[in-house]
């Protein structure tokens, strides 16, 4: 497996939003690189505005009009999606790459039955007949543990509870047996016990279908539970990435360290949490140099105007921080930010 090329390989991807008068540029995604092998799970964590959703939308090329992929490559099954024409992307979306949106409940159409919505991708992408697609829809609803699927296929989304609608969105996503599923904050609106059910379901589906999964979340607990790899985003960049165990046990970027320290834990009681001062940056006006420098407890002079390079710390473990500039091999050329 390790010798075969990765399923997804993103290299130096940058996606910017440009305001209508062209005066305001938001570097929502900047120089992002990572690879994902078939069947693997990658967690992308970051705070609001760090660029997670923009990254996902870039992979699927369903960006809003103001957004542009300004540079980089997205190789999926060996082909560069960045240069793929729209009609070919339509054949990939929903078929080979499926996405569960940040607000899954809004992605169901209230006017169509559940059966129509679950069978639609199969009819569009695979030309399946209505009858066969409906049979498959019933099987899919059973697979996502909707009770009485024979009756439920004819119902409308409003007749279902939040947890059931969530599972229906999951059924739609896997209906064409995609190779890659991107789930953007799939459980933020769910209660704990329902969240546990849904995470278990996604894990089961992944194992059953050999799916690769990208989990976008602000919740490190979800990453700890579900993912093998993690990429931490801050101000549009991946500031640290590596195997989940390594990052949780031995984080190397000050932001990752501070984030892990700031979270209350059930198993450890402390009087005070280690808080991170300041606030996440405005991606339209990122601080010069390392964009974490105004909040970093280890900030050095060069951090304020020189942008740290992406450095390999160990196999598969990379960080963008001047503390590691001499420890490893720079993977991309650092560039001087214009202040």
């Amino acid at each position: 497996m390790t010798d075969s090329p990765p399923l997804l390989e993103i290299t130096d991807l940058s996606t910017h939003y440009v305001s209508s008068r062209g005066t305001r540029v938001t570097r929502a995604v900047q120089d992002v690189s990572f690879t994902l092998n078939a069947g693997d799970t990658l967690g992308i964590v970051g705070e609001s505005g760090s660029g997670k959703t923009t990254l996902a939308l870039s992979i699927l090329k369903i960006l809003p009009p103001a957004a542009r992929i300004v540079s980089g490559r997205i190789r999926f099954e060996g082909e560069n999606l960045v240069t793929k024409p729209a009609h070919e992307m339509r054949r990939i979306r929903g078929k080979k790459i499926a996405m569960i949106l940040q607000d899954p409940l809004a992605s169901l159409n209230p006017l169509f039955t559940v059966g129509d919505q679950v069978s639609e991708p199969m009819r569009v992408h695979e030309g399946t007949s209505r009858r066969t697609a409906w049979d498959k829809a019933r099987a899919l609803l059973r697979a996502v543990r909707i009770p009485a699927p024979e009756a439920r296929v004819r119902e409308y989304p409003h007749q279902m509870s939040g947890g059931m609608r969530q599972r229906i969105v999951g059924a739609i996503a896997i209906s064409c047996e995609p190779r890659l599923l991107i789930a953007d904050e799939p459980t933020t609106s769910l209660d704990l016990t329902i969240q546990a059910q849904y995470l278990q379901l996604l894990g089961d589906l992944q194992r059953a279908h050999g799916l690769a999964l990208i989990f976008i979340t602000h919740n490190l607990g979800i990453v700890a539970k579900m993912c093998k790899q993690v990429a931490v985003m801050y101000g549009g960049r991946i500031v640290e990435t590596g195997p989940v165990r390594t990052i949780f046990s031995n984080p190397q970027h000050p932001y990752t360290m501070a984030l892990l320290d700031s979270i209350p834990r059930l198993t450890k009681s402390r009087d005070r949490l280690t808080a991170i001062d300041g606030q996440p940056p405005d991606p339209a006006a990122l601080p010069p140099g390392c964009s974490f420098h105004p909040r970093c407890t280890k900030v050095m002079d060069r951090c304020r105007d020189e942008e740290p390079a992406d450095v390999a710390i160990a196999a598969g473990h990379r960080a963008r921080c001047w503390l590691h500039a001499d420890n490893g091999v720079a993977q991309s050329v650092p560039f001087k930010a214009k202040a």
Partner: protein
Amino acid sequence: MRQPVLEVEGLTKHFPIRGGFFGGSAATVRAVDGVSFSVERGRSLGLVGESGCGKTTTAKLILKLEEPTSGVIRFEGRELNGLDAAGVRGYRRGVQAVFQDPFASLNPRMRVDAIIAEPLVTHEKLPSAEVRKRVEKLLDVVGLARRSATLFPHEFSGGQRQRIAIARALSLEPKLIVLDEPVSALDVSIRAQILNLLTDLQTQLGLSYLFIAHDLAAVAHMSQQVAVMYLGKIVELGDAAEISMDPKHPYTQALFAAALPAHPDEARDEIVVAGEVPSPIAPPPGCHFHPRCPFAMPRCSSEPPKLLTVGGRTIACHLYDGGSSPDIPSVR
């Protein structure tokens, strides 16, 4: 034993609802159904449970934003029902609130100084110089720059707005603050700032908190006592550290098992309870949790369990009313 600042006994709120599925006849949402607890002076009681279990309604009853259907609320030993108008005003001063959404809870057309001073102006006739001095002091206390006073809420981030809301809640020097999901809407890296601020204020000012949240680790971190609610009732109440290490009620066990790990190596049993929280309009008979409970016995579907004292905590579950401690698997 510390003195309770707030005691609640048999607190109940039923909302009548009309129409829809019930063919025009009235039904009842049992949002809060016979809840009892107390908050000790200078300490925090955490209230946890899934959405719709009645946490916010409990908060509103305590804040007198809703009138209880029945039950008793006692503040510093005095029953609310017996208070005259002046007594009620005193109560409203003594009990303040901070809500989840700092974007919705602050009036966008008011400047920060007016927002913070509003309770002061309503309750006390103070010269404006004095009001200004108090606002500055409050801004210092919550860690905001003094020049914030003349700005509008939209000029602040979520965490800063929550600081404004806290300053406002502090303006009348309350005894108790009801915190309903105070950090849920905030960015992860900001939450610790606000939780630390709340901890510091509690130590400095001797405040008591009713801390409502669905993040179990945050509740356990912030509270000495925890009450777990399910469908309008408290199912387990006791020492926060003990409950999080060794939850006893099957629902509490399920809830803590569903909490996400802090580290990938954290051992955790996979107890994933099936089903969803039933509607509080028609809760299951007997123990409300019985359709989802892995330990349910025949009597659970007909006999509502009573709250029992087991080893220093209160639990409502038939597994524990046989006298001796039952042999049920522990989560950790």
